[in-house]
């Protein structure tokens, strides 16, 4: 299979933008990625567009130029952006195309996501009973994890505080005001042990990448960033997942564990080789659990790591350097491409005030969410 390079990245800020449509934001993100890549829309041979709210992401063509290329719309839960990225990469790996675009865009209302549980394969009464909520799943998962591995309430607050601090350094973030551990601990309980300021919010935004075969990239850039791995996995029977009315008494590992292993194998590296990490922090508990599920620590070590500041920008394993979902919110279609945008800025040394010191060379990103789907991508110099 051919090697793939991330030639350019673009982002429309994440936040709330009144009447501006997700499609406009998507087109802006693509334009920025094209400019960053040094190519034009006419050079692009195919594209994948991801969204939850937009039925037809291919409408960005009307803002970029109707060149007639194949443009495929995808939705795959919280792993939508990782899916658009993987499919675009596969189109190049296979030799079918040389240059493609993956774009994600969304525009959500306020409050937790809601849908018809029947469309998730859950019983119709599951919603009537008040169970069809992702937030209560995250509350239960981290409550058990804290019990089993000695994670404190303060550590949950430390994760959120770190991500707000990183968000304050990111001009594209939704939340740019630092928040202390105490303020977070005093915020309203939503789903024990998770409080208001420990959760991300659905919001609006877009992000895009231009991918290119390594061969072709040699003509276009002297500093390529390689897309070393992309992996997607769904939940196995017996895993305890979002929207599970039942599960087996002995749980299977979460899909992130399998996606992570597959991605390391593809890239030929291990977690010890990773310099900078973007994890799905739907809530601060999710970031803690995902640190272990992706191989960055053993269960329970997070308590000391957070106390020591290991995952801050200046720490030994910076996590969610752009503020993650907690500071950026989650426009589902765009979220994973925001992670890639941040990793590319960091590997190029262009992350400004957020720059991780020591010239990071390997970046890792992970998505997880409803309906129990995970995506992992690895990039490197």
């Amino acid at each position, binding site marked *: 299979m051919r090697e793939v390079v991330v030639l350019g990245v673009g982002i429309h800020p994440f936040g709330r933008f009144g009447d501006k449509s997700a499609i406009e934001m998507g087109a802006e993100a693509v334009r920025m990625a094209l400019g960053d890549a040094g190519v034009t829309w006419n050079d692009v041979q195919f594209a994948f567009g991801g969204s939850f709210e937009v039925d037809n992401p291919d409408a960005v063509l009307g803002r970029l130029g109707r060149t007639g290329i194949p443009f495929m719309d995808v939705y795959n839960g919280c792993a939508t952006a990782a899916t658009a990225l993987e499919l675009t990469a596969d189109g190049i790996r296979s030799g079918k195309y040389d240059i493609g675009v993956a774009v994600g865009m969304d525009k959500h209302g306020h409050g937790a996501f809601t849908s018809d549980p029947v469309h998730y394969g859950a019983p119709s*009464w599951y*919603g009537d009973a008040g169970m069809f*909520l992702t937030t209560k799943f995250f509350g239960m998962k981290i409550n058990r994890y804290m*019990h089993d591995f000695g994670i404190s309430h303060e550590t949950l607050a430390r994760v959120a505080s770190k991500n707000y601090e990183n968000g304050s350094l990111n001009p594209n973030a939704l939340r740019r005001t630092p928040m202390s551990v105490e303020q977070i601990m005093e915020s309203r309980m939503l789903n024990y042990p998770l409080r208001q300021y420990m959760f991300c919010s659905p919001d609006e935004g877009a992000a895009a990448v231009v991918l290119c075969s390594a061969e072709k990239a040699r003509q276009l850039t002297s500093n390529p960033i390689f897309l070393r791995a992309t992996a997607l996995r769904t939940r196995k029977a017996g895993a305890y997942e979002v929207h599970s*009315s*039942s*599960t087996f*008494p002995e749980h299977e590992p979460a899909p992130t564990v399998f996606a992570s292993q597959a991605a390391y194998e593809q890239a030929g590296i291990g977690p010890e080789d990773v310099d900078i990490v973007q994890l799905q922090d739907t809530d601060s508990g999710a970031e803690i659990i995902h640190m272990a599920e992706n191989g960055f620590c053993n269960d329970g070590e997070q308590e000391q790591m957070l106390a020591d500041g290991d995952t801050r920008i200046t720490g030994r394993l910076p996590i969610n350097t752009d503020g993650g979902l907690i500071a950026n919110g989650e426009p589902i279609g765009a979220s994973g491409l925001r992670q890639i945008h941040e990793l590319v800025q960091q590997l190029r040394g262009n992350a400004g005030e957020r720059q991780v010191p020591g010239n990071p060379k390997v970046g890792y990103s992970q998505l997880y969410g409803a309906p129990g789907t995970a995506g992992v991508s690895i990039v490197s110099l």
Partner: protein
Amino acid sequence: MPLVVPFAEDVFTWPSDKPQLIGCKCSECSAVFFPEQSACGRCGSTAVERELLPTTGTVYSWTSQEFLPPPPYAGGETRDTYQPMGIGLIDLEGVVMVEARLTECDPDRIHIGDRVEMVIVPFRSDDDKDVVTFAFKPV
């Protein structure tokens, strides 16, 4: 007396002196699921049989639902009348784990590892009938 009806059909046996959750068991691989479904979620076999589940178990984990769940929640409360509820993942004697409402949501009154039993609790009052649901209560 008003009619007492379950909030949904085929979730638990009703009317009954000792209501039980209605699950199913795969005849091929013995996996158990709740509620009853048409095929096995582990092996795909369509040879699944109705199985009544144990009424006692242990709290594997729990959380509180402090805000009024958005639609399609059908409990009938408003933002002003809603009282937080507990939600747990209950290990039913090693047979299967189910998500269920808890009668408690205060960390001083419910804990991981607590023994619980199934009870039928009020869900909503309609004009002419009382709608009930299942929940688990510490024993």
